[in-house]
């Protein structure tokens, strides 16, 4: 039933009725499968991908990628300190990565000052955080597989053999 997932990942608005038709399975089976995915956490949430630049009053929202170097703790490694960090609502995403630093954060704020404030007062001051490096995002070209561009004109003719 990975079909169900692929369909919903492409368009979460697709109804169970439509999915049942697409994959030729009974409606009840599809509904049950979706429920199971929701319950076991395979499907975490349904949401729209929005281009923030198009939302009024939102144009000044800033995002930053922050590289964080931390000292792992006995027994719990990176997990405990990661949890302390990702619980801040400013942190949109948090990844443990290989390479020259440990955690990669995506942080969002109303202005550069807000983000800077978060980094200096909350993040850097944290015990076990050794070093941070902040990169403000300047332009969004593509996110979650979607290209952020105004829809191009239709290129196909309306009728061809």
């Amino acid at each position, binding site marked *: 039933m990975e079909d169900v997932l692929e*369909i919903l990942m492409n368009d979460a608005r697709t109804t169970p009725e439509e999915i049942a*038709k*697409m*994959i*030729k399975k009974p409606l009840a089976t599809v509904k049950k499968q979706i429920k199971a995915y929701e319950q076991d956490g395979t499907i975490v949430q349904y949401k729209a991908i929005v281009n923030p630049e198009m939302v009024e009053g939102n144009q000044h929202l800033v995002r930053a990628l922050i590289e964080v170097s931390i000292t792992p703790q006995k027994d719990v490694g990176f997990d405990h300190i990661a949890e302390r960090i990702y619980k801040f609502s400013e942190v949109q995403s948090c990844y443990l990565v290989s390479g020259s630093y440990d955690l990669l954060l995506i942080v969002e704020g109303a202005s550069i000052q807000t983000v800077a404030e978060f980094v200096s007062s909350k993040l850097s001051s944290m015990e076990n955080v050794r070093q941070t490096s902040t990169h403000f995002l300047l332009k969004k070209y593509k996110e979650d597989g979607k290209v952020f561009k105004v829809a191009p004109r239709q290129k*196909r003719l*309306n*009728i*061809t*053999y």
Partner: protein
Amino acid sequence: MYVSKLVEDLPPSGIRAFFDLVLGMKDVISLGVGEPDFVTPWNIREHAIYSLEQGYTSYTSNKGLAELRKDIVKFLKWRYDLEYDWDKEMLITVGASEGMDLVFRAILNPGEKVLVHEPCFVAYAPLVTLAGGKAVPVITTANEGFKVTLAKLEKAYQKGVKAMVLNYPCNPTGTSYTRQELLAIAKFAKKHDLLVISDEIYDELTYDFEHTPFATLPGMKERVVYLNGFSKAYAMTGFRLGWVAGPEKILAAMTKIHQYTIMCAPITSQMAAREAMRNGAKAVAAMKREYNRRRNFIVTSLNELGMECHMPQGAFYAFPSIKRLGMSSLDFAQDLLEQEKVALVPGHAFGSQCADHVRISYASSYDNLREAVARMKRYLERRHGKK
């Protein structure tokens, strides 16, 4: 004035006026398009751009780039265990359409006949006529899923038939054949010593079973001209690139015409096709999965609307019946376009016996398909209300 009798007498498409109507209209949801809605995969486009940057802008050998012909031959061996000589039995053409034109011109003497199943792609019969031959229709019907059967072939066969055209999966019906079904057709071809011109341009879009190239059937390779190309599987319609594989003598004859008329297929398209051959399989599989779901969705929806529709085995077309409505497919298409702004192709385009059907292309986004189904529903309800 000046126009030859042969061309003047060629029957014009009966639905030209309808096409013009569609082209002049705005905000239409079109299910009338005979090409993928996907853009050519980026790696293929990128390779075309790269070849231009490198300065590949010249003619190629008449038969096409040797590397590309070798790639295709290798692909056929891997995909279907089918062997061709890359130099003597393979020709790169400008779309499979050019291959079709070449083969008729290469084999037909004046008045010789070719069996062409109906409904079928619009070009076959006119191309036979232009080559000086005569097309003999094999009428297939909805109750048999528009399949060409032994009985139908025998009934249509007449003296002077030299070859037969097969197109599977078929545009406009989506009909395709299992190996078993094809064996019966092969037997017929052998019995009457016919050349089989097999247009398998939609082969990669076969959903319910494995596609069997006609040339892989026992004893068939030497009597099959195998046409294929890059348009449908790799969403490369605008690149205009196809190929033909077949017996050396016929290929040599076709190449003779090709070298005088076309010289060679465009090099940029050939370079792009090399990338498609080498690294295209993943994109093809993803598109096929998507088409399959759309097929299931649209065919189920059409049947729910009362537009009776067999389950097509391939391509990206559904070919439902509108008989119940008691109107011709042209009237229906016109009505639907004017009232609900949904465009589809009337069955008339694909054969004289297809006035009860319309072709619906599901090479369109779900948003479009959903909305089109809703609009057709509204139209049908209104029409029933009136009665």
